[in-house]
């Protein structure tokens, strides 16, 4: 299997089908104890049986911020409400779709029939393929780390932890043979190396940004003063739309959160009208996608360490963007991480959104207006009706540590390295 990909399928929900669809999704969760959290063994879509999945969500894209468009007659007042299926999985999106259908064809029909009454077991594959949407930018915490690797290394850590707990006062040197014995019976697949074609594709993609940047310089440089004036005019005049959060809505969102150490985040909003913002968003998300693929490959997106997967997806002829992520910790801590560690990145990626807190020079201000920014985020956050995490309880740190422990183990550590190895278990 190649590196991880995102499969996203989105289709408009039929008139009046939303309540029924929501009720169906609820039957696949662990509500009322853990609303929104998928039951891996539910009979409709047995998520636990689908191979190579890291995260999966069904989310109804009901946009609470559409009324913001009232002041912008160039933007249509209405956009369709879609059901989005998003799967972060191993292999290509086609591979993921294939595995999904192999396990849960009938269940997927039962869900997507709320979007199209003609969906059947025979046409669902083609139908889902037709309704696939591509993300504009996709971030993966650790490209190439397969679900199988995560699972095997987690089992290895569990086995070692059990050994350590059973021998709390044993020195690292005495513990080593016991740890080796515990690891002996556990399968450890070799790490997946990308195929030649994939490596070549990656290299071409890596070169694409600098080459395009060089090629566009002759046009971009003379145009820069004009572009800067256009940006500054907009930055100083654009309206901020960050209403005080409703406590009732907050309670509803909270009811779905913190049932696991990881949470899903879903948010939707409109882009500011006009070609300038539209093209700026396209270029910036392309750069983010490039950066996520080639620079931020080792456990953090800029300085944010808690995101497993994240994606930005254009909808409705690029009038709207849907942002989805899977992050460790609580929402407040996640927002704070955004503000304090990566405000510049947020400003780049979200400041073309309608109502975003005022930025200066594209990267300054914006998210640093803490209250406005949190209120803006809240205004755009939507509930994730169903979310599946096969690795409950494992943070990005756990996965990185497990991989580190395995690598150290294979080096047969001694001395200080062995002591560090044991300390990390």
């Amino acid at each position: 299997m190649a590196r991880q990909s995102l499969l996203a399928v989105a289709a408009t929900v039929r008139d009046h089908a939303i309540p029924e669809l929501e009720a169906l999704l609820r039957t696949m969760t662990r509500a009322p104890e853990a609303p929104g959290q998928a039951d891996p063994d539910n009979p409709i879509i047995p998520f636990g049986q689908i191979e190579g999945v890291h995260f999966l969500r069904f989310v109804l894209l009901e946009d609470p911020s559409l009324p913001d468009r009232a002041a912008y007659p160039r933007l249509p007042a209405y956009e369709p409400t879609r059901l989005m299926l998003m799967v972060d999985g191993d292999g290509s999106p086609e591979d993921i779709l294939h595995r999904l259908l192999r396990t849960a064809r009938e269940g997927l029909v039962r869900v997507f029939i709320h979007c199209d009454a003609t969906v059947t077991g025979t046409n669902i594959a083609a139908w889902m393929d037709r309704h696939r949407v591509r993300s504009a930018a996709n971030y993966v915490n650790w490209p190439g780390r397969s679900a199988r690797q995560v699972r095997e290394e987690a089992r290895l850590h569990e086995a070692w932890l059990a050994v350590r707990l059973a021998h709390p006062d044993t020195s690292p040197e005495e513990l080593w043979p016991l740890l080796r014995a515990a690891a002996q019976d556990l399968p450890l697949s070799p790490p997946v190396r990308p195929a030649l074609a994939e490596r070549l594709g990656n290299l071409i993609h890596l070169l694409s940004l600098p080459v395009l940047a060089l090629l566009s310089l002759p046009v971009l440089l003379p145009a820069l003063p004009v572009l800067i004036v256009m940006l500054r005019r907009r930055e100083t005049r654009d309206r901020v739309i960050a209403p005080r959060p409703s406590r009732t809505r907050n309670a509803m969102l909270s009811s779905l959160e913190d049932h696991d150490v990881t949470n899903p985040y879903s948010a939707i909003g409109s882009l500011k009208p006009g070609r300038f913002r539209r093209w700026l968003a396209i270029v910036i998300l392309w750069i983010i996608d490039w950066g996520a693929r080639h620079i931020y490959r080792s456990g953090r997106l800029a300085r944010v360490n808690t995101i497993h997967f994240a994606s930005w997806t254009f909808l409705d002829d690029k009038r709207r963007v849907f942002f989805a992520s899977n992050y460790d910790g609580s929402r407040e801590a996640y927002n704070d991480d955004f503000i304090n560690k990566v405000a510049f990145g947020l400003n780049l990626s979200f400041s073309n959104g309608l109502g975003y807190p005022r930025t200066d020079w594209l990267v300054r201000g914006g998210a640093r207006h803490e209250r406005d920014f949190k209120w803006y985020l809240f205004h755009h956050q939507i509930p994730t009706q169903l979310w599946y995490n096969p690795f409950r309880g494992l943070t990005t740190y756990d996965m990185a540590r497990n991989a580190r422990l395995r690598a150290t183990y294979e080096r047969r550590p001694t001395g200080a390295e062995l002591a560090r190895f044991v300390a990390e278990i």
Partner: protein
Amino acid sequence: MAVDRDDVQALVRSGFGSLGSARYILVRIVDAARAKAWLRGLVPTRASEVGGGRALETVLQVAFTRTGLRALGFTAAELENMAPEFLDGMASDARRSHRLGDVGESAPAHWAWGTGAREPHVLLLLLAGPNRIADWASHVERDARANGFLLVTTLASNPGPEETGPAREPFGFADGLSQPEIDWDAKHRPSARADRAYRPHIAAGEVLLGHRNEYGAIAGDTTGPLVQRNGSYLVYRQLAQDVTGFWGCLRAAAGPDGAQELAERMVGRCIDGAPLPGLVHGRGLEDFDFQSDPLGLLCPLGAHIRRANPRVGDDPLGPLGILGNLLSTAGLLGNAAGDAVASARFHRLLRRGRPYGASMTPEQAMRPGQPETEAGLHFLCLNASLARQFEFVQGAWLISPTFGGLSQEGDPLIGDRCPFPDDRRTDLFRYHDAEGIPHIAQGMDRFVTVRGGAYFFLPGIEGLASITAR
């Protein structure tokens, strides 16, 4: 702008350790008109009265819950610009309780006060010398009852130590250290460059509404009929501490000779308050940080004080010059493991707690057959943002079993030990001994249980007048 100390209740300025005794009188309002008239007659001590060589003999402070403000006549719409967490209440719903660790025996359903008909409206905080407190508190209590209030409960603190020095909490450790210094005169401007390194002072707006906070923005929304300026949110939690259980558990884990050393590892300080050996780079109790100990060899990564204040600036790599700062901000220097906790300056609490109940030494507590005694801490803290400060510190730093990249470790002192998620245990504690050998403690009991709690608003003097004039 400098804070007008004449408009601020004195608790923001001082914990009044020299006044050895405290009473926490928690009341509900049954007759709003009479209650307001009585409250108008109270003279709370002001921050301007602190210091200047004058020793105060008594200190009175007044704070209100959201239900208290409603009972005094404010409409829900008029209060809507207050902190949502204050309006929801500490025990609002299961998700908040889960985040705060108020689960199991600490769940609000078991609280002695703080919910339903036992949710106080007003906190009258009385501080005085041990000889004076009882009579004064009885008088105030009687007076309040005769003037439109119903008593929920009155709680007492232990008489403080005669000698000066840090107070001790019931497990025997020096407490009340590592307080932030408030920038009363707005001398410092938060800056992206200087704040890359840890600093002990915080902007006044981190504690007082209506002042600039660490983001350079004015804290809170100070419009509306209730004057919020110079007010602060006061968190009050009554935490029962199982002293014999704590020392008994450590004795079983490390033996009578090793129990204190293990306890010091769990707390992250020596029992007398000194930093753990090897961390110190000055003479004071606060002259240390964890930068030289990224792996937790000296002070465990999960130690209580390292969670409560990780002493880290905006960037764990510190200031690096223009290019270095840029590269570090872009995430091109350092690594995830070295950057696992948030900048401390946005998450500081001004603590004003005091111990209660029977006190005993660790040696006494370790003796087999010791009867269980009721002791604990009246945990009080002040902050301007309940979400970003108290709830963040409590939830993301103290209670979280994944704090700082750790795994299956709640706070060794106050962790709830409840498995999370599902059956994944949270009662581990990894540490190194003095020789640098790694150890793991497991199966620790729950040592701290919440007995009650509420979010209060501690108004400024003008704010109090706006409440009683309602």
